[in-house]
């Protein structure tokens, strides 16, 4: 088990290294114009451009530039060129908001997805299943930002049922915190509920044909026990691992759209604002942050898989 963990950690570090190189290449090498002017952003003046050139050592070789950039990121010295704010600080400030959004949405989507997926599988082919499948398909076809705008317009603006965006910190007022987050949670959850309920349904339908389910029935336990203890339990394993990956992706950057529309000042909104100004340091930092989160969750998911499936834990290869 230890060797497994060590190998995975080494793998993760090397992927992170590759990611940092790619981020560097994307932001510093790909663009085609004068690097300093480009980095300084849309509203740059000659003084700023000159400063950027010195700061990043653009007259030096690429590897040195890379090291300079990495040093700046790791020592938290990266500064936005359009607002003089320290990028690391801004990300740190935005983190609680993003986490509030993502964790709440994740709990909501998993609860709903398991419920709908289970119902769909158990009543496969009947009305409930068809209705839920249609809902799921519509759910995965909605652009997140559009759904957010629609909900905002109809439920906040017209019906006045919910506040129009902005964030209230949990420590300040838990009720308001939740109240302001209900629409964003719903928005973010819709897409994933659609996807996950179908994955669970598909897994459960496969599992129901498995021999061990037949054995369970032959033992004389109730149908409900068969469904929960055998079918659902085994079907959840791939779902949980998928969830780990998606959660990492959502925190890492999937929340941008929701935060933008609902005006929640999290990491995503910060990145969204930087796009408009073509302000590259924040984008660079957020991209690295996002990728890091995904890699981290990749590792967690692998460990989780071993915990849930004794075949992996005890050395046998995973079934295809």
């Amino acid at each position, binding site marked *: 088990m230890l060797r497994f963990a060590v190998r995975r950690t080494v793998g993760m570090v090397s*992927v992170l290294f*590759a*990611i940092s190189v*790619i*981020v560097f290449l*994307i*932001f510093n090498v*790909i*663009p*085609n*114009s004068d690097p300093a002017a*480009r980095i300084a952003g849309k509203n740059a003046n000659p003084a700023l451009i000159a400063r950027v050139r010195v700061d990043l050592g653009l007259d030096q070789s690429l590897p040195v530039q890379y090291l300079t950039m990495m040093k700046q990121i790791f020592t938290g010295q990266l500064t936005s060129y359009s607002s003089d704010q320290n990028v690391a600080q801004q990300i740190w400030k935005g983190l609680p908001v993003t986490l509030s959004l993502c964790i709440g949405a994740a709990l909501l989507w998993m609860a709903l997805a398991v419920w709908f997926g289970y119902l769909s599988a158990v009543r496969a082919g009947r009305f409930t299943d068809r209705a839920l499948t249609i809902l799921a*398909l*519509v759910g*995965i*076809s*909605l*652009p*997140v*930002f*559009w759904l957010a*705008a*629609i909900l*905002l*317009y109809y439920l906040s*603006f017209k019906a006045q049922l919910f506040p129009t965006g902005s964030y209230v910190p949990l420590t300040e007022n838990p009720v308001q915190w939740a109240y302001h987050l209900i629409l964003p949670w719903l928005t973010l959850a819709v897409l994933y509920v659609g996807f996950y309920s179908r994955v669970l349904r598909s897994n459960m339908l496969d599992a129901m*044909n498995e021999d061990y389910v037949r054995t369970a029935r032959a033992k004389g336990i109730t149908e409900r026990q068969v469904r929960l203890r055998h079918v659902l339990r085994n079907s959840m394993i791939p779902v949980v691992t998928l969830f780990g990956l998606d959660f990492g*992706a959502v925190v*890492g*950057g*999937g929340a*941008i*759209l929701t935060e*933008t*529309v609902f005006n929640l000042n999290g990491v995503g909104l910060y*990145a*969204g604002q930087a*796009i*408009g100004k*073509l302000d*590259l340091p924040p*984008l*660079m930092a*957020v*991209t690295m942050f*996002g*990728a890091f989160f*995904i*890699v981290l969750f*990749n590792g967690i998911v692998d460990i989780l898989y071993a915990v849930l499936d004794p075949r992996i834990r005890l050395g046998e290869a995973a079934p*295809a």
Partner: protein
Amino acid sequence: MPTPDAEVAVEGRSPWRLAWLRLRRNKVALAFGVLFVLIVLFCLAAPLWADHVAHTGPNQNHITDKILVDGHPTSVVSAEGIPLGPGLRGGYLMGADQNGRDVMVRLMYGGRTSIYIGVLAAVITTALAVIVGVLAGYYRGWIDTALSRILDVIWAFPVLLLGIALGTTLAVGGLRLGGLQISGDSLWIPILIIGLVYVPYMARPVRGEVLALREKEFVEAAVSQGKGPLRIMISELLPNIISTIIVFFTLNIANDMLLESALSFLGAGVRAPNASWGTMIADGYQTIYTAPHLTIVPGLMIVLTVLSLNVFGDGLRDAMDPRATIRTES
């Protein structure tokens, strides 16, 4: 004596025919497939509509114009800046935007962009994914390791962030690859970005299938017949994974269109003067409280198009799944 008519002719049916028969039975999937085709035709008909019904182009401003609504002359854009809403008329069927442009015409032209990007990006993704997946799965060894590592790294990026990163950096100065020069404003930028970003999502399953197929006897047989690797890949492996590819391709178009609209909404996708459904939503969002139709209408088009692709792709997948039959006696 064994009777001659006992030799019932067993009509062999190829997997393709079986899949087609199953698909035919799925009326819903077929209906949505037709819907997608209709939407494409709708967008292709843009110039016809613009010339003969609306009598205006997608980029022509008519802020100060007045048209007849229920007999009353009404401003296309009111004095307070509120544009005309949808109504049953030839011009401005879906209303106007803040610049007085005809939303319906823009919808059709914008749709061409969105669908064009979605389909081309899907073609690129599929082509790359198949090449990478087949090579990695067939050769294994260091080729597989190298390709898989590259896929892992791309895959580690959140799709949206990677799209934004590439979208913003390439927008600044465009792309220069060897002798090839693509302007930052060209549609090829989002096409290439979206195409690239989804490669790992398709390449991995393809690789997995090739790895499994590789062990099967017919591949061994082909090798022992002296067929070279390329021939084996084309004549033995490809036909067996093509149903997976087709399903993935269809669903990929849907994902690509969603990604394009998200990127365009954020400003990292399609750029002015080009317009897509995503940019229309971005523009419309600015005035969502006063002119909601500008946000709602293009979004509905995206939903309809993506939904029809998803439902049809789902139906395709069910039709091609060999396990669709009931299990009886062992």
